[in-house]
């Protein structure tokens, strides 16, 4: 891939904008590449327009390339792709955060399952265990605020405590739930508090969609 005329440019410069192979090479130079003989040529690729979804500083750097035999891409195509780029980056971040939230909720569910199994083996009566049971009453209040989309300052005002105290509570909540983020903790809260109100994942997905979409 080092021979690819566009991708190394992104890695080297950190730019993200739409670029064409024609920005870097003439048609003759492009066709002289080994990459053209082995890859582009057999696939009928004469023109390529590329944009970076996420640059080298992102957790998952990636790019999208569009290929054509004819006609060449135009500056109008380039401008459109440049306008799309920030949305691609934001949507990718949302997808990564959503996956983190799902895996956090899954871990919390596994913890709950193990605790419930332990209680059943010990022959104890009681309510079904959930990850939320690990929290104090005050931490559950804070988590409810997080799940409703409030900032630390807003939660602090509603509970009449300091924002620093809320931040400490949030740290404890994430640690106790094994959640990697506030969003993941919010998923835990929603799944634990809405077990009998229809398909829970419908509510979870709707809530996350609202929270993540700019």
């Amino acid at each position, binding site marked *: 891939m080092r021979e690819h005329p566009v991708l190394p440019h992104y890695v080297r410069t950190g730019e993200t904008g739409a670029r064409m192979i024609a920005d870097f090479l003439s048609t003759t130079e492009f066709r002289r590449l080994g990459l053209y003989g082995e890859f582009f040529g057999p696939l009928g690729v004469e023109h390529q327009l590329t944009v970076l979804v996420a640059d080298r500083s992102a957790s998952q750097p990636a790019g999208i390339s*569009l290929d054509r035999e004819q006609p060449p891409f135009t500056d109008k195509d380039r401008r459109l792709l440049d306008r799309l780029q920030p949305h691609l980056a934001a949507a990718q971040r949302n997808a990564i955060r959503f996956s983190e939230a799902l895996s956090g909720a899954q871990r919390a569910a596994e913890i709950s399952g193990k605790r419930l199994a332990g209680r059943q083996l010990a022959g104890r009566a009681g309510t079904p265990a959930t990850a939320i049971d690990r929290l104090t009453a005050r931490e559950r209040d804070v988590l409810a605020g997080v799940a409703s989309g409030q900032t630390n300052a807003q939660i602090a005002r509603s509970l009449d405590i300091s924002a620093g105290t809320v931040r400490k509570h949030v740290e404890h909540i994430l640690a106790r739930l094994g959640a990697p983020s506030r969003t993941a903790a919010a998923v835990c809260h929603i799944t634990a508090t809405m077990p009998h109100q229809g398909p829970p994942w419908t509510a979870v997905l709707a809530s996350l969609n609202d929270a993540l979409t700019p």
Partner: protein
Amino acid sequence: MGRGDDPLEAVLPELYALTPAEGFPVRAMSVTRKLIGADKGDYTEFDPGTGAFRVLVDPEPP
């Protein structure tokens, strides 16, 4: 051009519809190709540390 005529705005709901990370390449490629016609498309993930690339040609749903 009025707001309703902007092709970019028309595809944004699909782009921002919630999807896990593993489904993002398919979603992103679908949206991009709706905006700009092409014979095919590639989604390339790369590791700046090692220089390694992974190219998904016309990615399919996972």
